[in-house]
Structure formats: structure tokens, C-alpha cells
């Protein structure tokens, strides 16, 4: 029997706070459920790299990435920064250590290999740096009245999901930015913040364990992973 792609991090179903993945690797915290390591390797088909995010488990929250680059927070200590440098060498990705006051990059940036969106409160020079590192044009915008677009939206190279109250015209705008199709969804039994509970890449996805069957189906449809 095929198991649904649901998982949690020691009981917490908001997976994207802890993990961020691209098509080549997945970043996660130092302490992980062994079963979750297996699930990530199987579902996303990428290795898990443990990063020390300044003593915190919230590696996904402090990181934004696509296949070209990684933006991580200055909260990462020396050990975490060293790990990121090693990742940069191994997988040939650009790195940027963000020292902006808005340093929860996972909450503030949503990006794939075609485009990205960012919290409009972040300064233009910082957006320019992030844009250079990620190799795509990054557009400041709000989704459903929230500036933290990273937690509202999650994009891969095959699709995107966004906040449940995103107006249709904004979804169309996002489709032109990410150059893939997407829909509005809820996760974890009605939570509208789509970016907080899903980790995904072009190979597969994982969703928070509280999500219902309908939510799983909509996420699968949005990310074009119905197989």
C-alpha cells in the first residue's frame, strides 16, 4: 500500500519551518526523526543535509533557495556557515548570508528557477543582492494582505501553491512570475498559510501530517505531481 506523503517533525506538522529543498538537496536541522530522513530521501529523492541554524531547529524558516542559490540568515553560527560553504562547493550554488533585519528568509522570500517574490519591506539593495544570488528577478509584493510571502506561497519548477484567500488576479500574476501554474490551497486541516507546511521539489513533496485528503490532493494537483 502506498502511504500518503504526510509527515511531521517530532509532532509539529509545519514542515517548511524546519526543512527547505531544491532539486539537488534538502536542508534540515541537526536533530531529526530517523523515519523522516528516510521519507525525505524516498519522496524528494535528494540527500538531507543537516545545518546548525544558530542552535535553532528552524533551518527552513531562515533559508530561501532555488537550484541556483541559497539565501540564509546571519543567525547561522560559524558551524552553520561552514556547512553552507561546503554545500555551495558540492552542489555549485551561490550563497548569500543575509544580515537584513528581516532575516527569516523562508518567510519573506518565495522563489523557483524562473522568478521570485519577496517581502516589500526589504530594502532595494538587499533585494538586488538576493536577486543576483538566486539568479532570477525578484518582485516585492503582498499576498492576501500579508507581506510574509514566503509563508503564503511555495513554488517549485513544476507548480506553486498559495494562500487560500489569494485573489484570482494575483494568482495569474504569480503564474507569470513563476512561469508555472498554481492554485490556492489550505494545509494542516484548514491553515491557509500554504508555504509553512509543504516541502517540495520537482521530484516529490511532503505535507504536514494534519492535512486532509482533499488538501493533499489539491497540493498534488498544484505542484503537478499526480502520478
Amino acid at each position, binding site marked *: 500500500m502506498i502511504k500518503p506523503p504526510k509527515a511531521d517533525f*517530532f509532532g509539529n506538522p509545519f514542515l517548511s519551518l524546519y526543512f527547505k529543498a531544491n532539486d539537488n538537496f534538502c536542508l534540515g536541522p*541537526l*536533530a*531529526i526523526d*530517523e523515519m523522516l530522513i528516510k521519507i525525505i530521501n524516498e519522496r524528494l529523492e535528494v540527500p538531507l543535509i*543537516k545545518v546548525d541554524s544558530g542552535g535553532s531547529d528552524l533551518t527552513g524558516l531562515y533559508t530561501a533557495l532555488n537550484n541556483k542559490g541559497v539565501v540564509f540568515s546571519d543567525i547561522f553560527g560559524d*558551524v552553520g556557515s561552514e556547512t553552507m560553504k561546503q554545500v555551495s562547493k558540492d552542489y555549485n550554488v551561490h550563497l548569500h548570508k543575509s544580515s537584513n533585519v528581516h532575516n527569516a528568509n523562508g518567510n519573506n522570500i518565495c522563489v523557483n528557477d524562473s522568478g521570485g517574490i519577496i517581502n516589500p519591506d526589504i530594502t532595494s539593495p538587499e533585494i538586488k543582492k538576493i536577486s543576483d544570488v538566486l539568479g532570477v528577478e525578484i518582485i516585492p509584493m503582498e499576498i492576501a494582505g500579508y507581506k510574509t510571502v514566503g509563508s503564503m506561497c511555495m513554488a517549485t519548477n513544476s507548480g506553486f501553491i498559495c494562500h487560500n484567500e489569494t485573489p484570482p488576479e494575483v494568482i495569474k500574476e504569480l503564474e507569470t512570475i513563476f512561469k508555472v501554474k498554481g492554485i490556492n490551497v489550505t494545509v494542516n486541516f484548514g491553515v491557509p498559510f500554504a508555504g509553512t507546511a509543504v516541502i517540495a521539489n520537482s521530484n516529490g513533496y511532503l505535507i504536514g501530517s494534519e492535512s486532509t485528503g482533499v488538501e493533499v490532493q489539491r497540493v498534488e494537483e498544484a505542484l503537478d505531481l499526480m502520478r
Partner: protein
Amino acid sequence: MKYEVSGDIKMGIKSRKFNFNVEANSEGHAKTKTYAHFGAKNKLKKGNVVVKNIKEVK
């Protein structure tokens, strides 16, 4: 030195296997840091964390 600590944690009626990479001076220090980590992050008492294996990572 870096250590990889593995074992079980008891969360309610569930028991889960964990894998924790930690920087420490000795195996004892790594064990203490593991208890501290799960105490701080998951509010688990020492009795609910069973360390089964500690190995040095090079």
C-alpha cells in the same frame, strides 16, 4: 569534535527514533547536550530520552 547521537524519545504514547548531530568535547558531553536539546525544544524530561548510540563523526 562532532558526534552523532541516536536513540529513542518518548512523546506521549509514541516512541520515535532520533538522530542528532552535535558538537561536543566528549561522549558524555554529547549525551548531556542531547538531553538539553530535547528538554529545550520538545519539553522532554531526561527519562523520556533514551540515548542508545554515540559515535564520533570525522
